[in-house]
């Protein structure tokens, strides 16, 4: 550091927001591709997000299955996986916030007999005083319907989950509807049979048929080799 150099703390990011004027809200219009109609009956509705979970679903659950519909400007694809079960994959945040995406699916959520969400996070973010050695991956749940937790341990405070899954669960709690969120804590290594095993077991418990496929193992996106 040079004498006189101004070092801005990371939270300086807050300052920009404070001083900027918030814009007037303009509602985004969803660009549906395919049917935007809510199905007549929904036995199960599953929201998927994060690259790792999406990758596994595309290769092990959806395979060659074409999406029923898409919302292009929301990063959403909806798949019909049979038996009146639907999978919503949220790939990237575009014109819509997670809250707005959740409200787009309001009629689906209200109609669904059971709603689940699956997300993932780095195991480094998982806080638990009992772990001195963390496993490769583990699943925790946040649910207002204990009968649909399938025996997974609940997520302990102060761990928090954010994203579309958290938004859907919050919305369900607000509407007094049942919903269960599963969070897969996983290390940074590429997807493989070991770290994905808990997730595949979970998918099977949700009565979703799993296809046996081979996944290409990609190298780590980081150039840092230990």
């Amino acid at each position: 550091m040079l004498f006189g150099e101004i070092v801005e703390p990371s939270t300086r990011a807050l300052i920009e927001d404070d001083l900027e004027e918030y814009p007037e809200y303009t509602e985004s219009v969803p660009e549906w591709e395919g049917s935007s109609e809510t199905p007549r009956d929904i036995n199960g509705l599953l929201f998927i997000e994060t690259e790792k979970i999406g990758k596994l679903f595309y290769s092990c659950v959806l395979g060659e299955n074409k999406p029923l519909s898409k919302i292009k400007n929301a990063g959403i694809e909806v798949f019909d996986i049979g038996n009146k079960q639907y999978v919503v994959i949220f790939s990237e945040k575009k014109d819509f916030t997670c809250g707005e995406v959740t409200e787009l699916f309001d009629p689906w959520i209200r109609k669904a007999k059971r709603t689940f969400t699956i997300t993932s996070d780095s195991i480094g973010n998982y806080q638990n005083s009992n772990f001195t050695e963390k496993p490769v991956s583990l699943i925790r749940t946040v649910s207002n319907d204990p009968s649909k937790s399938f025996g997974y341990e609940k997520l302990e405070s102060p761990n928090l989950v954010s994203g579309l899954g958290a938004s859907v669960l919050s919305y369900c709690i607000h509407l007094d509807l049942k919903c269960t969120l599963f969070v897969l804590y996983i290390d940074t290594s590429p997807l493989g049979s070991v770290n994905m095993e808990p997730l595949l077991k979970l998918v099977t418990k949700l009565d979703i048929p799993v296809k046996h496929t081979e996944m290409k193992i990609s190298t780590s996106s980081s150039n840092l080799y230990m």
Partner: protein
Amino acid sequence: MPPMISLDKNVDLSEYVLLIPSVSVGNVPQLTIDLLISTYSFKKISTIWHPAIVSSVGGDPYQSDRSEICTACELHINEQLKVAAIQIRSTLEFKLAQKFFIDLKEALSPLKLKNIVIVSSAFDYELRNFNNEKFYYSSNEKIDEIMETNGIKILEPNSNGRYCINGAGFATKLYEVLSTQFRCTLLVKYVSEGDNRPDAFTTLKKLFAISGLEEKTLNVIFPSSWDFVFGGPPPVGIY
């Protein structure tokens, strides 16, 4: 879409003081509300839904053995104190923030609140002139005397009449919107980032002093979620 706050018909919040924390430096306002809720056994009466709120969910932050789910924005009350507190744990989506303020104002209108106190913190190094305590306020109520007694100085607006408080999050904008309809006070504490638990404690004491509420003589109870302020235990592998 569902109402932002869905209250039971039997809940009457007329003449309640409502505390709203702004997400700001060191999360001091959130820590203050946490202390208030755990020490005075506030009860949750509603979740607050709005697409502007960046959702987050987790276990009960106050008692880890309970199965209650914590969401990003919730309304808690204490009937004896006649205090209501919104606990907001995440920031607002930039494009929806203004809509959130207006919708919140509409949602609070029928509740007939006594007044609203917006609690905020700001960057310590931005404060040029200060004496012992770093509390500042702005209010549309005549509370100069009680503020002076408690060593809280008035915030001075810029030459354009607006408040510029670096690090205070949405506090000033929310104050601008709510003060048009409610008796409203903005309380700001200038803090440094680090272990902000003492800041939360002094903010709580200050809130009680200015709200004319009787302070509890019992020890302050820290919520169980504060156990990991500095993260979990280190992995054994590093030794």
